[in-house]
């Protein structure tokens, strides 16, 4: 491949993180092959070597030509290209079984891509040693539909737990916990146990826990799935505020109302492929 062609390939909207719209144009085999060639010779990824090459390592999240095939033969993700620049807010939508969960598992390195490259917070996850995985996860805050709080611990203890089990010095724990409890607005409920809290408060506790490591990315997997519409809005507002404070947010959701109302970047998955990547609503608008 000649150099001009390559550069043309690199101007792809999906790789150029600043222009995430009109992604569907890029679903041909040629451009992807070009990216694969580039990644084959990894020297192209070096910072500043080519002004036209977006520095993928600077992005909060990047999946390039990623395919995930499970041992049972199921192709959960096929040729997925997705770059989320730092500070971005993106929705991940799609029907159940479209591959949203697999994508999230790849990002937190719960699973490893069958092919392609996954970058999170500047790290190539395929090259990440097993013992370095915990350090990666401290840079990712993850929030689930079912909150995953410990029922025997208070709000404060649940949040502090994340610091405690990562060996944070004791004197640093209390102030960090106070700070995130203030961000999510749970200072008053700090001594309550999850069972006495509303669903929204429980999810805010989970978000506080995700925030306490001061992560570069928050990944929320259906965070409003168990909540009524009003409370859902509260949670979304909270995630938007966290995003405004500089944290990248990737939120997988079925909540069409929220997605459509916010006019943020929407990445739609269907049968393991990205079928849409643009600013817009939950449903295709054209």
């Amino acid at each position, binding site marked *: 491949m000649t150099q001009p062609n390559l550069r043309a390939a690199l101007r792809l909207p999906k790789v150029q993180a600043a222009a995430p719209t009109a992604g569907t144009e890029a679903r041909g085999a040629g451009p992807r092959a070009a990216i694969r060639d580039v990644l084959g010779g990894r020297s192209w990824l070096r910072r500043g070597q080519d002004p036209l090459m977006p520095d993928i390592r600077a992005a909060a999240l990047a999946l390039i030509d990623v395919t995930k095939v499970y041992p049972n033969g199921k192709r959960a993700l096929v040729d997925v290209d997705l770059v989320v620049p730092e500070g971005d807010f993106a929705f991940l939508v799609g029907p159940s079984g479209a591959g949203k969960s697999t994508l999230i598992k790849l990002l937190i390195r719960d699973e490893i891509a069958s092919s392609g490259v996954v970058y999170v917070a500047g790290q190539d996850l395929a090259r990440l040693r097993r013992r370095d995985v*915990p*350090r990666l996860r401290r840079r990712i805050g*993850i929030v689930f539909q079912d909150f995953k709080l410990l029922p025997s611990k208070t709000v404060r203890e649940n949040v502090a737990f*994340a610091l405690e*089990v*990562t*060996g*944070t010095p004791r004197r640093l724990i209390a102030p960090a916990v106070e700070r995130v409890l203030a961000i999510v607005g749970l200072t008053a409920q700090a001594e309550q146990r999850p069972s006495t809290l509303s669903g929204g408060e429980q999810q805010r506790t989970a978000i506080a826990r995700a925030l306490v490591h001061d992560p570069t990315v928050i990944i929320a997997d259906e965070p409003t799935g168990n909540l009524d519409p009003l409370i859902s809005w509260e949670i979304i507002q909270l995630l938007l505020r966290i995003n405004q404070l500089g944290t990248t947010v990737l939120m997988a959701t079925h909540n069409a109302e929220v997605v459509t109302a916010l006019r943020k970047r929407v990445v739609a998955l269907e049968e393991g492929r990205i079928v849409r990547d643009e600013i817009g609503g939950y449903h295709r608008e054209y």
Partner: protein
Amino acid sequence: MIGFLAFSVRRAFQGLLRNAVMSLAATITMVLMLLLLAGLVIILSGLQAGLAFVEQKVEVQAFLNDGVSRERVDALIADVESLPEVADVTYTSKEQALAEWREQLKAQGKQDLTAVTGTNPIPAKLNVKLKDPQVHGQVAEKLKAPPGVVQEVVETRKVADAIITITDVLRTVGLAIMAMVGLTVLFIVVNTIRMAVMARADEIEIMRLVGASDAFIRWPFIFEGLLVGLLGAGVTLGVLALGAQPISQLTNVLVSQVPIGFDDRLGTQLLLLVLAAGTALGGFGAWISVRTYLIK
């Protein structure tokens, strides 16, 4: 580091208490095994001491009949001394033998019943020292040759052989039983820790997600296993301490002839052995469990 240790130990205690029944079962089997181990060591070292005692004694003893004339005895001594394998023969008269016997009783703190009988029941004897303890040659035959002089010949080698045989059998059987009980203990510890892991499945999942290192996930359980081992060792040592007095009396009665000296070192060795065996088994069991059920 201190935070890590405090965290691990605290969680180990929590785990132990949370699953009290299983922990108790593990501890009790652990105690059983350690008691068996200690008992085996005590008996074997007792036999070892007995063996040493027998071996350091004269190799061949001949007990003489009462009322044999001194001339015949001297002739026998001369006969035996002429054998090439014999180093030395010493004669102990009835009176000397009685005095030795009384001394021995006194040393063991037992009552001297011979003072009551009025007669001397202890026979005179010949102690034959061999040049090589293993080569007995014709000594026994020679001693028995003149009719009516020697009542009984005791060859240390035979006694020693008997003790060695007993020791070997006991060691083999004991170790086999130990191995089986040890394996059982291992399984129970593995199962206990497995249940502790399952009880904490939610916590472990969260720990993984928030980026806890493997050490933080793994060590609390290994500490829990170590704790079971330590607890078992502690109870075992308590039982041994309580039982030490009656046991040593019992052994004195059983083997009154052989003053088995359980020296002070045996106590220390037992202490260390029980502690080491308990913690090793507990820790190893937990390690296996954690490896099997935690690592992914």
